[in-house]
């Protein structure tokens, strides 16, 4: 439980973040200001925002929980599962998206393939974000209940209200700039836990010695590489094929919440630099979210649920004042994830669905209004569906399972779309639909088909392969696009004029 000074830190943080977010209200005059921050953001803010949006309170809880169960191998997600993909995005994909002047990734897919692909991709992301929002709210409720003893519904409604207010008023600029502050707080709070945890376990050597006592397989706990026949969800083959080649690229290149920030960069150099700066910052994330899980194994080896590792550690380790700071850090991670998902989903809905199918010729002020309405509706949906997460064993695995369904096929058509000019609209559509179908089938029959636990990495790889094969096959049998339609959309085909 928190003390008086902790409450002061938390309340000061909440008020400060809300005021900062509301300050950006004065810059929102058009839908471009709301969705793309007027295309005026610097690389350092975008990079920090990408990182903090990707790492939320659910990762502190979820990744620590996975580290508690399986060890350091879960760090692959933030190291090899981010850095190479972010470099690829920085040097190849982001400049193309930025130059194309699109608002959303599905909008790019629509120009490259057809409206069917655009709509399917957009609706998929909308559904994913909407349910993911529920998971994030649920993670916050667990944390707040453990730390403060607050009822779950009270925590969820408080978070939704604060985030909703500044996201609604300040748009993407408010989201990104509050993320900058939130990242600093998250790094300080996370570092405090790691520092105190190491002090408690007797440093790195002390932690390794304690691990050897409480875990039979302690050596594999400290190995990033797990053998093919491991019973953990992280064999090196899954990490290489499923994570590095597919999921990481799909996430960093095809994820609207990530790429939308780069689209809001003030110029092409800033767009590229933001991704590389983000990749560098990403290197530090596992230290903050993974090491507490390992420390918890040493200090509290008797926990029944891995997801309780982080909350247990911070309640047992942190002195007054720092408890409040860590709590603010968790709230920061949580709020940054929520604001990103909400803003991105509002953009997807307004640009790809509403403007495309419901009202093509409205004024810009009308689309701005629709974006704000979508923000409110989505927050309400997230609050109402938050209890769905209760039925999943591990929060992080649940999110990855959702992602693995369509990440592979989406990346397959993005990759072919930008590098292979022969890819056709029907090839893209069949590749996306067929790939998602394969994902679904593999997931349904996973107990019969796979030998590891939670084979989401393998599912994502094989659905990517299916999407690739289907797109190529159908493209070869259908009419190619005229050359001029592909200018500015395919690598090596510059836009004329």
């Amino acid at each position: 439980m928190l003390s008086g000074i902790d409450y002061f830190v938390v309340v000061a943080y909440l008020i400060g973040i809300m005021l900062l977010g509301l300050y950006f209200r004065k810059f929102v005059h058009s839908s471009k200001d709301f969705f793309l921050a007027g295309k005026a953001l610097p690389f350092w803010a975008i990079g920090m925002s990408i990182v903090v949006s990707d790492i939320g309170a659910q990762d502190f809880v979820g990744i620590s929980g996975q580290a508690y169960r399986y060890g350091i191998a879960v760090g692959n997600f933030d190291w090899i599962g981010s850095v190479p993909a972010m470099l690829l995005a920085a040097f190849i994909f982001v400049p193309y998206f930025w130059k194309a002047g699109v608002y959303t990734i599905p909008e790019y897919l629509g120009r490259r393939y057809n409206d069917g692909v655009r709509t399917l991709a957009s609706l998929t992301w909308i559904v994913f974000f909407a349910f993911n929002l529920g998971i994030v709210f649920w993670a916050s409720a667990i944390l707040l209940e453990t730390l403060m003893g607050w009822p779950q519904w009270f925590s969820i409604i408080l978070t939704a209200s604060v985030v909703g207010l500044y996201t609604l008023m300040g748009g993407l600029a408010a989201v990104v700039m509050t993320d900058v502050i939130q990242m600093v707080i998250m790094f300080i709070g996370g570092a405090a836990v790691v520092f105190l945890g190491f002090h408690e376990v007797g440093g790195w050597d002390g932690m390794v010695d304690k691990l050897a006592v409480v875990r039979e397989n302690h050596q594999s706990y400290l190995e990033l590489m797990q053998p093919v026949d491991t019973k953990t969800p992280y064999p090196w083959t899954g990490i290489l094929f499923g994570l590095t080649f597919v999921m990481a690229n799909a996430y960093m290149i095809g994820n609207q919440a990530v790429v939308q920030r780069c689209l809001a960069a003030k110029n092409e150099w800033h767009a590229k630099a933001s991704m590389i700066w983000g990749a560098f910052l990403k290197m530090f994330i596992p230290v903050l979210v993974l090491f507490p899980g390992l420390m918890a194994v040493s200090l509290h080896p008797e926990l029944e649920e891995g997801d309780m590792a982080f909350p247990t550690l911070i309640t047992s380790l942190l002195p007054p004042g720092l408890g409040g700071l860590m709590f603010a850090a968790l709230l920061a991670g949580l709020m940054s994830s929520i604001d990103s998902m909400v803003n991105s989903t509002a953009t997807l809905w307004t640009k790809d669905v509403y403007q495309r199918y419901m009202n093509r010729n409205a004024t810009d002020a009308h689309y701005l209004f629709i974006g704000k309405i979508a923000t409110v509706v989505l927050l309400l949906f997230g609050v109402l569906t938050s209890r769905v997460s209760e039925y999943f064993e591990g929060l992080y695995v649940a999110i990855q399972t959702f992602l693995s369904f369509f990440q592979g096929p989406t990346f397959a058509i993005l990759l072919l779309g930008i590098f292979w000019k022969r890819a056709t609209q029907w090839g893209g559509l069949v590749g996306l639909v067929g790939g998602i179908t394969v994902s679904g089938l593999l997931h349904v029959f996973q107990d019969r088909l796979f030998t590891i636990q939670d084979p989401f990495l393998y599912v994502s790889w094989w659905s990517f392969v299916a999407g690739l094969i289907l797109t190529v096959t159908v493209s070869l049998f259908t009419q190619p696009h005229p050359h001029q339609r592909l200018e500015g959309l395919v690598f090596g085909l510059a836009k004329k004029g």
Partner: protein
Amino acid sequence: MLYLASFFDTFAKTAKMILNFDWLSGVSVGAARWIFLSLFIAIGIVVCLIPSDYIFEGVKERTWWRDLRLWGLATLASIFATYYIF
């Protein structure tokens, strides 16, 4: 009928072996680590080969610290060290 059942049994076993990457089970964890390290080296080489004009697109003044290739190489060096150690 028996032949058909045997065919499906063999097919299911082969599919399972492919899907689970059992065909790579002979690769040791140490060798796998070097596959990852080689990947970082390969990406580093590709980054070095990107033309300057593309790197500095949108920049008014070309300074060494704005060279994004150096940023990329620094990040790759840190991930290389991490995978080399762990």
